[in-house]
């Protein structure tokens, strides 16, 4: 199931990787839900719930990061290295 994703992990540009990370998050949620049932311990769905809730904070942080960098590098052209 997650096999296709491994290859996405090696994607060419930075944003592909973010995309892959996001997909990975969704897949982990699904995976956890399925495994919880394979184990017969449905009370562990909390975990998947936690992921579903906070997984996208990372992506929002990326957006904020890029936005900041865009603002700073618009002013002086040598941020970063």
């Amino acid at each position, binding site marked *: 199931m997650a096999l296709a994703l491994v290859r996405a992990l090696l994607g060419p540009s930075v944003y592909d990787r973010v995309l892959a990370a996001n997909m990975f998050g969704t897949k982990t949620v699904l995976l956890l839900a399925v495994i919880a049932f394979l*184990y017969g*311990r449905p*009370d*562990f769905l909390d975990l998947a719930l936690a992921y579903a809730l906070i997984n996208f904070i990372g992506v929002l942080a990326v957006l904020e990061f890029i936005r900041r960098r865009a603002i700073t590098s618009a002013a002086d052209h040598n941020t970063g290295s």
Partner: protein
Amino acid sequence: MELLGLYHYWIFAVLLMIGFYAVIAKPNLIKKLIGLSIFQSAVFLLYITMGKVDGGTAPIFQAGVGDQVFSNPLPQVLILTAIVVGISTTALGLGIVVRIKEEYGSIEEHEIQEIDRQ
């Protein structure tokens, strides 16, 4: 099958060493910190692996279900706290790196040493 039983430990060893490599070979301080957290994760994995018992489930009693095998709760307790402590210490490390960047203008190890030598 006998060898398969040790696979987890091998992965642990390999991960540990990947982290270790990042710490000793990469000059970049943030990379070192990421390496350190990989190293840390490897140790976590080792502990949790040791706690696993065949056919066991997580050590939470279920009402009405008797006679279950539970995995070892002790390593889990240790690691649970260690993860949170880990992120706090990583944050501290990042704080130091940022301060170094402000003082030296670089986060590469050899450049910092260069500046120090002057």
